Each structure stands twice: as structure tokens, then as C-alpha cells.
């Protein structure tokens, strides 16, 4: 649910990075944080455990510049990927405008990818959204790992509506901004349609 402030001439939108545990959602945000200009970004907040696993969410506010005189502020969130944090994931999807699904390319994580995507669909539905119609982008992360499943196989397994799909190596930054740009675009187009 975007928030348009005519008084301050700004629009706020919420993007959520979803996906299985240890898939690289937080790493995506960290890279965006590192590479953004200081005047564009706010503080990166990570509510994590002592072992750096996301406990509740990571949050990064990002100003992307102006569209038609309106400042666009993107609020990027990640969810905790571990299965047992489902209640928290549901909360974070509240009022979401766009979703990035960060999948893990490793063979051993293919089931986790599928399970997490099903979980995304269910949790969106509980919040009144439909995965089929919400702005949505798919990322195949960890393409550099030797155990990575071939791209076409991942595509067949995870892409379900021809959504924009990007290969990524989030620790090196490859594909990170491409993914962000694609979801931001869809969200802005979605605003135009409404």
C-alpha cells in the first residue's frame, strides 16, 4: 500500500525481499546499501540474531529521485527466511507494493525454494494480495557456486508467469540493482494503472 503525500510531494512504496533461509536476501540489501550515495539512503536496520540470521526484518530506506516532481522513497524490507519465523513473515508482507523472490541456485536448496514460494503465495493471500497480480521479480542468486542448477532448469521450476528474472551473485553485487530496478519499475507502472 503506497503512501502518497501531496503536502511533502513524495511517494513511499514498500518492497519486500522474500525467499528461503540463507538465500541472500540480506546480502542484496547490504549491497544496495553499500553502493548507494549517502544522500540517497537512510540507515540499514537489521534485526538479527547473534549469529547474523535475520530475526524479524532488515530495513533500508532509499530515495531514488523524482518522478514528475514527486520524490520516490522506496522502503526495502527482507523477511526472516527460516521456516519457523512464519508469523513474522506474514507481518512484514502487510501493505507490500512489490516482491522480490531471492532463490538459492544450489541443487540442495531447490525444495526450499519451492516451499518458500508456496509460503509467499499463502502469506500474500492472507494479506489480501495475489502473487499472480502483484509487482513481482524473481532472482536466481549464488550463480557462482559449483553446485548451481542450470538456469533453464531453475526457470522451469520457479518462474510461473513470465516474470522478470535475473541471475545474481549478491555478494559481488551482480544482478542486484537490475533486480531492484525491475521491481521498482513494475511498482511505478502499477501506480499508473490504479
Amino acid at each position: 500500500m503506497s503512501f502518497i503525500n501531496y503536502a511533502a510531494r513524495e511517494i513511499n512504496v514498500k518492497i519486500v525481499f522474500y525467499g528461503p533461509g540463507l538465500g541472500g536476501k540480506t546480502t542484496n540489501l547490504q549491497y544496495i546499501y553499500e553502493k548507494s550515495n549517502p544522500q540517497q539512503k537512510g540507515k540499514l536496520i537489521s534485526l538479527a540474531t547473534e549469529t547474523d540470521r535475520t530475526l524479524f526484518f532488515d530495513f533500508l530506506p532509499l530515495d531514488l529521485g523524482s518522478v514528475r516532481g514527486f520524490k520516490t522513497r522506496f522502503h526495502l524490507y527482507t523477511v526472516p527466511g527460516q521456516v519457523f519465523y512464519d508469523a513474522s513473515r506474514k507481518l512484514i508482507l502487510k501493505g507490500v507494493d512489490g516482491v522480490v523472490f531471492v532463490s538459492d541456485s544450489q541443487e540442495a536448496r531447490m525444495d526450499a525454494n519451492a516451499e518458500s514460494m508456496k509460503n509467499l503465495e499463502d502469506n500474500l493471500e492472507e494479506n489480501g494480495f495475489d502473487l499472480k497480480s502483484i509487482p513481482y521479480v524473481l532472482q536466481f542468486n549464488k550463480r557462482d557456486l559449483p553446485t548451481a542448477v542450470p538456469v533453464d532448469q531453475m526457470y522451469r521450476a520457479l518462474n510461473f508467469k513470465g516474470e522478470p528474472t535475473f541471475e545474481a551473485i549478491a555478494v559481488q553485487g551482480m544482478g542486484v540493482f537490475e533486480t531492484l530496478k525491475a521491481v521498482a519499475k513494475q511498482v511505478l507502472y502499477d501506480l499508473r494503472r490504479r
Partner: protein
Amino acid sequence: MAPSLVMYEEEFERISQLLNRLRIDASAKIVFLVDKNGQQIAGAGEIDQVDTTSLASLTAGNVAATDGLAKLIGEKEFSILFHEGRKDNIHISIVGQRLILVLIFDERSSLGLVRLRVRKASGDIERVLSDIEVKSQEVGFDDAESPFAEITDEDIDALFSE
């Protein structure tokens, strides 16, 4: 799903005035209005002393988590949260089901005073909120003034030109 929240100049002014008055009446340092999704709406007082964006997002997360706890034990919501610090305290309350009112105060005020003033101000803010809802339904996104009706591919690409 609730529609997008749209804030117009006139209502923004009204809300800002209400927050300012509440800040004085409650002797608070900061008064702050956030929506349940963590978007900051308006504030009054020493807001340049804190990172308001982070404050907004963490407050919303806090309220969301507490809401989840409430549902678990069969409560509709916990409408007030209070965090007591050594110097500063935070009072968080829900207004009109979709907004969160945050007050930060120190020893110059008290929890009783804050609660009293918040209760009164909440009603006033709720009235503005329902005016906004009526107005955005009337105006809607079809309005020619909507900044996004004519957004082009170039506009969007320009955002990422760096």
C-alpha cells in the same frame, strides 16, 4: 486490502497542527504519526534529533509484532504500548485502526498526562483521517492531477540513470 493512503495539503496542515498542540499539552519532546506499514506521516517537536525513517519502520514492526501476540491470546489488539527508559520514554498508541501515534517524553511529563492527552487528540486525528478517506475516494487516482497517470518509461528509466 486497504487502498493507498493519500495525504493532501489541507489535511496535512490539520494533522500537523494537532500534533503540535498535543506535543505542548502533553509536554512531550516528540510527537510522531506513522501508518501501520511504517510510512512516516507527520511529526512535531525535536524531530531532527532522531532518525525518523528508522523510528517509523521500527515502530510499525513493533506494533505488528504486538498485534500478532494479541491475536495469539485472543485479543483484538493491544492499543497502547509503553517503553520506559532511564531518561526518555516512548508511548505508542493506535489511532483509527491504521495509524500509529508515537510520543517521546522525559521527566518533564508523566505517563498519566500523556495518556490523557493522547486520548483526546486521537479522536481529533481520527476525524481528519476519515475526511482523508472520503476525499481520496472522491478524487481517486483518475484525477488529472495524479502525478503517476502519465508516467512514462523515460521517467522511470531516469530514476536509474546513474
